[in-house]
């Protein structure tokens, strides 16, 4: 009999804590499926965020460190500079990457830091109860934009892929979604491509994933999935924003000599 579906071994036998209809569970699973298929479970080191994704070490059977809110790309930088042979990726939300951690993400991309960022864009601060995120759409109602996001007061939704695409150090940037089966399959391919980008030493890679948050959007799960297609993608168009083919000459060439082991040095 042919096995067509099974639990990835890198996914712990635990119940996801995510709300019904949430996209995080799908994305968590896609990541470990890709790691397993690429044979990278023993090499991977994940940096978990503050926010809804913060408990992913309860689900991933790989090494995970939690970072302070927004600092994922800086923590990943530190790890990668010590262990360039490992696959290092951060998992970050929209508040994490596009508000409090803008500087860390932007400059990791600009350095061409050879890491991957899995960026979950659901347009709200989920864990804290649905406040406005930097990616909240104009006129979208959240707990801190009770009459809708007004650009005069609260600015505009931030397009991370397009901003990072201007940076020479960013090698691979793609925006996908997880609201339909075909979109999920595309997201999986994008994650695999981003990891391969890192394995090839090409520099910074990022996959932005539009993900439903029915509870904070105050919608049913199906409506939330439709809303991504009907409304969200107009602000955040899907597709590859950047796919540079050449190595960026950034942070990739740190040799194994920088690994934290003993290296005796004498004073000149």
């Amino acid at each position: 009999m042919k096995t067509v579906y099974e639990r990835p071994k890198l996914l712990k036998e635990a119940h996801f804590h995510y709300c019904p209809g949430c996209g995080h569970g799908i994305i968590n699973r896609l990541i470990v499926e890709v790691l397993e298929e690429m044979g990278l479970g023993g090499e991977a080191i994940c940096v978990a965020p503050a926010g809804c994704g913060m408990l992913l070490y309860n689900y991933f059977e790989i090494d995970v460190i939690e970072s302070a809110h927004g600092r994922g790309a800086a923590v990943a930088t530190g790890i990668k500079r010590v262990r360039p042979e490992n696959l290092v990726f951060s998992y970050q939300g929209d508040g994490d990457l596009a508000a409090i951690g803008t500087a860390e993400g932007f400059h990791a991309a600009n350095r061409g830091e050879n890491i991957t960022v899995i960026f979950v864009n659901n347009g709200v601060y989920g864990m804290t109860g649905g406040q406005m995120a930097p990616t909240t759409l104009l006129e979208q109602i959240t707990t801190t934009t009770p009459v809708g996001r007004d650009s005069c007061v609260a600015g505009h939704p931030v397009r991370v892929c397009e901003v990072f695409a201007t940076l020479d150090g960013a090698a691979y940037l793609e925006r996908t979604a997880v609201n339909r089966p075909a979109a999920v399959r595309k997201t999986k391919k994008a994650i695999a491509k981003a990891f391969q980008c890192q394995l090839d030493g090409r520099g910074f890679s990022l996959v932005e994933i539009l993900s439903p948050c029915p509870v904070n959007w105050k919608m049913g799960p199906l409506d939330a999935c439709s809303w991504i297609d009907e409304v969200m993608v107009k602000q955040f168009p899907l597709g590859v924003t950047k796919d540079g083919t050449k190595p960026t000459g950034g942070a990739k060439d740190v040799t194994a000599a920088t690994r934290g082991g003993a290296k005796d040095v004498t004073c000149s």
Partner: protein
Amino acid sequence: MRQLMSGNAALGEAAVLSGCTHYFGYPITPQNELTEYMAKRMGELGLCFIQSESEIAAINMVLGAAAAGARAMTSSSGPGISLKQEGISYLAADELPAVIVNVARGGPGMGNISASQSDYFQSTRGGGHGDYKTIVLAPASVQELTEVVPLAFDLADKYRNPLLILGDGMLGQMMEPVDFDGLARPADYDKPYILTGAKDRPARTIHSLIFDTKLQEEHNWKLFRKFQLMEQNEVRYETYLADDAEMVVVAYGMGARIAKGAIRRLREEGLKVGLLRPVTLWPFPAKALREMAKTVRDFFVFEMSAGQMVDDVKLALEGEAHVHFYGRPGGVIPMPVELSRIVARHYYQARSRDSAAKEEKR
């Protein structure tokens, strides 16, 4: 071999010789020579140097590097150290080793770029959020950096805790002769907690999120027991002309250098004044002070601040002796002669106070 070096450069060289493989820094005066030295030296040796986008990024890079098993360091001055407090709190909570250097300057706010000792509270009380402490080492000369820096990396690894080296702009920028020949690279510790990828072993996690309050409390007590061990084992201080002293000056870092100059003058004039210089500001040499208070009735605290360590001296003495204070905040660096005059006045006042008390008893 003796060479002339600024404290900042010597600090960098001592870190490299102590096995520091990863340095992350951001420019701020008066510590720039350290960042610049590391940029050059780490590059020569094929080690890792990053000029980060902010102090917050730098401390989080340190956290990542420490989690991956490296000896990592960052440095800054007061305003930047304030920004690093987030990461220092996470390092302490995650039980990760790191060395953080503060080449302190005048404050609060932007303050100025002169030497100051006004970051004592921030350094010795944890500094960031939550219930934690860090060992704080306060060197008083460029040569002493060759002892303090390897000790810092060793203690950070030994206790799996971030550690602060608190200098100031004068120590950082002053050039003095320094000899690295006696500097031995601290031995490596087993690090069964670091993240290397879960190949051939169960997956590891490093996190400080503990939702269950009972488990969070247990984690806090575990840290507390570690801090108690530090208090028992890691107190370091120096005494100078203290054996026969009637008044003991308590000062640290460059303040203690100034105090030594003042004490030499006072001794020439026949005043029995000595010095206790805490090398560890936390843990504070409280027992040594209490022991001294059996014979010494007057302690004179001198700081280049409006008075911070003086609180620890009072807590240590528990009312067993008189505590005098002289401070110059704002980046002012007094001359030894100024301090000697103030100490002398307090010395004679204490004498007449004691003889008046004797009169009364008769």
